[in-house]
């Protein structure tokens, strides 16, 4: 009998706790300005991308540099022989 009463008391206290939680833990509403500005920042950020290095252009410049260098060497040698 006493056990049953204790059990009932526990059930009632849980029910009261649930009721308190339901009535007190209400959703909160964030500042609409925050929602708006975060959305803007988020969706604007994907457009900013780090540029991929252009390897083709690098090869052209290196090739051109080597060619010009070789041309100078050839010209100097030609001048020396004459």
């Amino acid at each position, binding site marked *: 009998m006493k056990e049953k009463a204790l059990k009932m008391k526990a059930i009632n206290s849980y029910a009261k706790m649930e009721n308190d939680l339901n009535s007190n833990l209400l959703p*909160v509403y964030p500042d609409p300005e925050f929602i708006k500005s975060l959305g803007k920042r988020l969706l604007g950020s994907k457009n900013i991308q780090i540029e991929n290095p252009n390897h083709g252009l690098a090869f052209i410049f290196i090739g051109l540099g080597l060619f010009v260098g070789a041309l100078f060497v050839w010209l100097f040698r030609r001048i020396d022989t004459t």
Partner: protein
Amino acid sequence: MNDSIDDVKLIQDAGNGDNEAFGILYERYVRKIYNYIYYRTGNVNEAEDLTAKVFHRAFRHIETYNQRGVPFSAWLYRIAHNLVANWYRDRSRKKEVALDEQLPSSYQFDFPESALEKSQEAEKLIKALRRLPPERQQLVILKFVEGLSNMEIGLIMRKSEGAIKSLYHRTLESLRKEVEKVEHPNNRKKKK
């Protein structure tokens, strides 16, 4: 109209670089994530900061998210949970005091006026809630603030529905004890 588009399609599109699709997902979940973080931290500024971090992280990794039986919302809650855990860890390192003791006796939860009546009962309840282990706080917030079912909570917390049910009962019991401690703080001292 946006409500009718399901998450799966939006996630696919967002993964393919469709910003508008991610924007719809953002609008759909930002308030829920904010609520969760807000109740975990009890501070508007931190809630805004961490909510921003959750969505930046989700935005960066949307391509890697694949639907392995985990809804998009559960994925977001997990990110939020991890960020809140990191936040608590950093905070405890800096202050080197128990998290329980960080709440002043006057209780300064800066809830927006429109959202919650600053009643003494609510103060006591939330103060008691914040004394619970993080896992139990998470369960209570997801159930009562977000209104999720045990099954949905299980997906977020990586537990079975039965495990959530059992954890829920233990949580109610420990919350009841914490409320008593908050209501009668001198009782414990007297016993000692």
